[in-house]
């Protein structure tokens, strides 16, 4: 399958009961995953969550400890990397420094003895708008150009499955946007199956049809970006994909369509359809941009939840919106985004405010608060993420 001809379309990828252990730690606990042909699938998670290992397993650069990998229905678990109809855009690009750009792009075609390798390589370079640099060596290109060459080198082979390992990580914001757009165009044009691994939630959400959020070698939740954002299933997803205000409390009331949760003495209503659990202790949440601030206690209204009074402890102006931190006694600090519809911040530091949101905007998590909240909350603070990143960098440096 790997030699002779191009894949005429993308193929399904199926991971069955994959487990991967390294000496000393388990990278992937147990993974079952089906990626339909032609989709743009993103694996999202913090570094060390097992997403890159998953990608390397699919590429054939690592062997799973247990489980099977199927591409287009064919079991490729025992196939070597060079036999699989899969190509990878590496995080480091890994362009061969001793070859020109053209030779790099034609490398895979030549290995598969495909006719007109040079013409096809030029065509792929035209697709990423770099044909005029075909004779250069990779060191003579900028980071963004190298990234596009790496992309051309992979897609020129028309693999059934294209793996992207944080390929946009090294680019500045403008180039990132450009490349994201280009990747989407290529996917629509060529119809490949894309498996994209990233720690950048924005990148995953803008590009992928389906996002799987990974944590500690497991998939926490999978679905469309809108679904993950609107109805996160766990505290980890709620905090990794954007920001969330989370409250935990017992269910104190129930109607046919909604539940009421006691949060610091106030009853907060969440629609049943938007809550995974309907009894006992429940963690509920709401996104910061769904909140509004009021100077006076708003009139009671069955369509909105009210918390407060709290005190504004921090105001930061970000242009489009203003981020407020509101300390509510007994609840902790809430994050509130207010659109700057009029000019600039409305509230000042130290102001007393009430926070409200539409009942329809809340969501309830599936986590059992007693068992899990602590673990996940501790895991997603900026400090611990930074510490983890630092530990990763250190091990990387030691290896190098």
């Amino acid at each position, binding site marked *: 399958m790997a030699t002779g001809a191009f894949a005429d379309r993308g193929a399904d990828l199926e991971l069955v009961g994959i487990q991967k252990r390294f000496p000393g730690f388990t990278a992937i606990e147990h993974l079952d995953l089906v990626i339909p042909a032609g989709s743009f699938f993103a694996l999202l998670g913090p570094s060390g969550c097992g997403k890159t290992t998953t990608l390397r397993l699919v590429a054939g650069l690592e062997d799973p400890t247990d489980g099977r990998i199927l591409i287009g229905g064919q079991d490729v678990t025992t196939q070597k*990397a060079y036999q699989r109809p899969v190509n*990878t855009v*590496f995080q480091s690009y*890994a362009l*061969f*420094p*001793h070859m020109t750009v053209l030779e790099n792009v034609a490398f895979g075609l030549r*290995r598969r003895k495909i006719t007109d390798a040079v013409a096809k390589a030029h065509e792929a370079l035209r697709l990423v708008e770099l044909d005029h640099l075909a004779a250069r060596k990779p060191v003579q290109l900028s980071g963004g150009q190298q990234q596009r060459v790496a992309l051309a080198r992979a897609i020129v*082979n028309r693999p059934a499955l294209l793996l992207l390992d944080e390929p946009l990580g090294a680019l500045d914001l403008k180039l990132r946007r450009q490349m994201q757009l280009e990747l989407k165009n290529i996917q629509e044009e060529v119809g490949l199956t894309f498996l994209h691994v990233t720690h950048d939630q924005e990148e995953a959400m803008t590009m992928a049809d389906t996002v799987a959020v990974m944590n500690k070698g497991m998939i926490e939740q999978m679905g469309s970006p809108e679904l993950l954002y609107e109805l996160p299933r766990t505290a980890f997803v709620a905090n990794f994909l954007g920001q969330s205000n989370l409250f935990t409390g017992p269910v104190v009331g129930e109607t046919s369509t909604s539940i009421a949760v006691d949060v610091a003495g106030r009853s907060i209503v969440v629609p049943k359809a938007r809550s995974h659990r309907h009894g006992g202790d429940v963690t509920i949440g709401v996104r910061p941009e769904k909140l509004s601030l009021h100077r006076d206690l708003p009139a009671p209204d069955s369509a909105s939840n009210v918390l407060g009074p709290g005190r504004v402890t921090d105001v930061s102006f970000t242009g489009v919106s203003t981020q407020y931190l509101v300390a509510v006694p007994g609840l902790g600090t809430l994050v509130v985004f207010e659109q700057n519809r009029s000019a600039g911040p409305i509230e000042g530091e130290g102001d007393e405010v009430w926070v409200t949101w539409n009942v329809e905007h809340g969501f309830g998590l599936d986590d059992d608060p007693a068992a899990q909240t602590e673990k996940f909350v501790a895991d997603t603070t900026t400090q611990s993420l930074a510490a983890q990143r630092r530990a990763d960098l250190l091990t990387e440096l030691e290896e190098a």
Partner: protein
Amino acid sequence: MAFAAFASTAAPPTDAPPRRRSPVALLLLLPGILYLVLFFLAPLVSLVLTSLQAPSEFGDIGQYSYAFRWENYVVVIEQYWPHILRSFGYALTATVLALLFSYPLAYFIGVTTRRWPLLQSLMLVLVIAPFFISFLLRTLAWKQILSDESFLVTSLKAVSLLAPDAHLTGTAFSVIFGLTYNFIPFMTLPLYTTLERLDLRYLEAGNDLYASPVQVFRKVTIPLSMPGIVAGTLLTFIPAAGDYINASRDFLGGADTQMIGNVIEANFLVLLNYPAAAALSIILMTVILVIVGVYVKRSGTEELL
């Protein structure tokens, strides 16, 4: 003035040309230039002049006067061309053998043992260890091992792998063996330094792009280790071509294995034919320069070096 020189290197003015000829820099270069003139250029000129000398008309053996006898070159080439050819033949064979032996060794030390730094250091020490003993002694030891009465040769004869009247010492085999053995560390170390820095992600990329392990080795690993291969082969080939210890009758060589180094030695120390020795030295130097020049150019490693 010294401070001014420092200041100019620390912050070169953007519009002025950055290279300013400073008298300080010239002064600092002077010892080096003097050294080169005194110990390289002058002897070289002297060597060229010696190679053109003619025997003194009324002198003793070994007495020559300055002339421009270009025939000296013709004479030595006519007389010693088999030795010249043999030298380069032996050196080339030994270089290829040393490369074939050292590459897997260097790959093992530089790539396979990366995860175990202690083992890596130990292996490196083992490669360098022979340097702790004079190479004359080591070559003499090999003469013992390969001699007719040695355990090795008698055993080989006992199992008929060697004819009863055959020898190992004094043959092309033992000279090439000695050259290969003596230069293996010079081949292994530069190969190791290149392979130790080899980024394995390139090999993975090759694998990902449908290249089998053999193809990855040929298309990626070898080209990326070219700087080490070039350095190692040069460090082996150049001294091996001029070597006169291994091929010497006192060590591993015989009458039929004399290399150009032995001929130069004999002409200089025994026959007292200084012009011939000088002419042969210049020929050796020129041929090596040409071969090395072509080799470096063709291997295309200028940008990798």
